[in-house]
């Protein structure tokens, strides 16, 4: 059981470049989330999804886009990378309600220079 898989693990981008962070889960979870964690800080919610075809903004959505065409996949798109987007990005998923905690991926460490 792979859980939540994020790719790539590391990436260096130049200012203005674009990239997609991939996230896939194999637990048939409805809810999926993208968080960013700046050095020494907590997690801030970027976007989340309650099911295929449904997404909504979190606390810090500017500069990012998401899509959810399937239950399994929830990619995060950076269109014009900026140094302020240097961070570690975590994808997470959970079942709806109940006592299910978030299951986190291992993160993607992104540097924009």
């Amino acid at each position: 059981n792979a859980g939540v898989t994020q790719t790539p693990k590391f990436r260096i981008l130049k200012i203005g470049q674009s990239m997609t962070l991939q996230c896939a889960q194999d637990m048939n979870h409805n809810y999926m989330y993208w968080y960013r964690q700046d050095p020494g800080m907590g997690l801030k919610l970027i976007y989340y999804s309650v099911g295929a075809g449904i997404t909504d903004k979190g606390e810090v959505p500017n500069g990012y886009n998401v899509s959810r065409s399937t239950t399994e996949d929830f990619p995060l798109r950076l269109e014009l990378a900026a140094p302020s987007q240097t961070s570690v990005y975590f994808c997470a998923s959970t079942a709806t309600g109940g006592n299910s905690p978030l299951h986190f991926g291992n993160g993607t460490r992104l540097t924009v220079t």
Partner: protein
Amino acid sequence: ELKVEQNPLFLSMQEGKNYTIYCNYSTTSDRLYWYRQDPGKSLESLFVLLSNGAVKQEGRLMASLDTKARLSTLHITAAVHDLSATYFCAVVLTLFGNEKLTFGTGTRLTIIP
């Protein structure tokens, strides 16, 4: 907007001592999580607290929830070095049937031999 605050932000304690981390939140919620994060790693679920008065224990860690006071505590008993990590609480806010999880700022715990 839901705000989640933890204190202290940094905690250095000796092995064998007891201490408590506090998590306050600003809006009514029916679910709270505690997570642990080791340096450079992803987040690991510790506890899920579902109702007022809920108490859960695992080894030297015990978490409790007071929904009326909007307060959760994570108590550490007879600390050992292996407990050194950053601990996050996270609170679920349900709006129009959609769930969003907001994380606290984190408490960086260092256990000194």
